């Protein structure tokens, strides 16, 4: 699998231009409103009520699935549950639309390879 390199957050607030919303520190420090879940074992900061897709975008992660035919990376596209590009495996359950599901603390999110059903063939 291709590792997706995380980078600093491009979310609102990370930008320095005038007019940028001031950021809120997420993260599991325990004293802020934010919390953490893991994506492929790495901690990702999220804010309460954020969808998994929004939290991943804010962490600079744009893809969390590989396609069934060509193994290409995909992430959120339509953001409203229509396109299914953003399917991901959450706590072992594959094919969850990341744009619709709110993140909760300690979720284990993992890149979904293809249909996410490889286990059926083992």
């Amino acid at each position, binding site marked *: 699998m291709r590792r997706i390199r995380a980078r600093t957050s491009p979310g*609102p607030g990370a930008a320095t231009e005038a007019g940028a919303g001031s950021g809120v520190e997420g993260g599991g420090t325990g004293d802020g409103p934010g919390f953490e879940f893991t994506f492929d074992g790495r901690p990702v900061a999220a804010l309460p009520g954020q969808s998994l897709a929004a939290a991943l975008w804010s962490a600079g992660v744009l893809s969390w699935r590989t396609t069934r035919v060509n193994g290409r990376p995909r992430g959120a596209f339509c953001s409203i549950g229509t396109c299914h590009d953003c399917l991901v495996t959450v706590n072992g359950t594959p094919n969850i639309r990341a744009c619709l599901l709110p993140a909760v603390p300690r979720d284990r999110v993992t890149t979904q390879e293809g249909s996410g059903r490889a286990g059926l063939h083992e």
Partner: protein
Amino acid sequence: MPGSTSDRAERADGRSRTAGDVACLAVVGAGPAGLAAAVTAADHGLDVVLLDAAASPGGQYYRSPPEELAAVLPRAAVPPRAAPKGQRVFSGLMDRLAAHRAAGGIRYLPGHHVWTVTRTGSGWTLHTVVGARGEGGPAVRARRLLLATGAYERQLPFPGWTTPGVVGAAGAQAMLKSGHALPGRRVVVAGSGPLLQAVAVSLVRAGARVPALVEAAGYGGYAAAPRVLAANPSKPAEGLRHGAALVRAGVRVMSHRAVTAVHGTDRVEAVTVSRLDRDWRPVPDSGRTITCDALAVGHGLTPQLELAVEIGCATRTCADGSLAVRLDERLSTTVPGVWAAGEPGGIGGVGLALTEGELAAHAIAADVQGRSPRETSGRVRSLGRARRGQRAFAELMAEVHRPGHGWRDWVEDDTEVCRCEEVTAGRIRTAVGELGAADARTVKLLTRAGMGWCQGRTCGFAVRALAVSAGAAARDPAPDRRMPACPVLLSALAGADGADGMEPLDVDESPDTGRGGTRS
């Protein structure tokens, strides 16, 4: 059934009702049209069930962060739901919704996605799923049905559009409105339609750099219809406001251009923008590269028609080639007992949705009370006039931004058209040119384009266009049939039956967070 009284009077003190109860009206969708319809119908004394897939009302237009997120964001970081006037309209609708819910006139079911509607006696049964995985929800019965199902974004494929960082323009806005997230720091906005301006303004306000707004059509088409503009003064005013904001933010607005290539393997690094001729054919050697780390792209919206088509409502082809529900002046579909309002009748925006939602509710109330359609109030007449003006603008907008035939020339043979099934344009062209496919349905059978998870919602328009040879007279396409309207677990399908023996309707109105089964 004209003449039947509202069954609110027959109801005991607003206790939770069982599925044996039949509501007077079910409204599907709690966006602008559905909200306006539900509260107006309740004002008339009708007993309404309002179902919505989202966790809170407002639809895509009034989308906003969930309460728990808004609570931790600095005030400046919470984007306004709408311009100040729009905010007031929304607050008014929410106040009326709250009052009717308290009085028992509206049962609001958030987090309930209607996946199919079946005919039950003289009414309808709406089958729902709840949660992220599509688990079986309650079945809701109603004598009349209003479809206010909204729209989703229309896409045209282009080389590289499946690269991570290429996102829907409306999708980027949705993620920003409710999730406080951006796809990148430097975002090119491209496609066609006035929505792009709003998206670019939102991105800039959130702190992104938007180097360019790339519009495939021109804005000059609007000037050719001064009377339509004069009847819709808020539209050009909004365009000018957005235009000024974009100039201030240093966004370069380019028309008659399109993104014809995306650079970057695992994420967007730059895009190529080419000039287009009048038919949207890319002009050779006119490409310019713009560095960016995300691209927000879309060609306006297209009506969400699954339930309407399944029920058998006739459709029409709009000026932009999209299908919409055919409606009369009173928002009736061609199926008795079924009305539609807002985007399903053709993309027209929030003002039209509010007008049509209210108008449909007045028409439904007249039907319930057995009044003749000719007995109209002054309010209904003025809404009718407003609707005609707004519909004229909607048709103009569709005309101005209708994709020219030439867009197919920017699609390479190895460009994926169907994102779900990874079907390339080359395979579709082979199906059309060598295997004799003459419509999208045959293309689907031969290539699987449109057979994936999204059921052709994303690629349907493009596949249809690729299936007719360039310049061929566009025939009225048949609407896609997509039952179920959303993902449904087999266990929910197995538990769904026509009408009898349904489980009691649980009126716990707290939205299902949908995490059932995703925790281990």
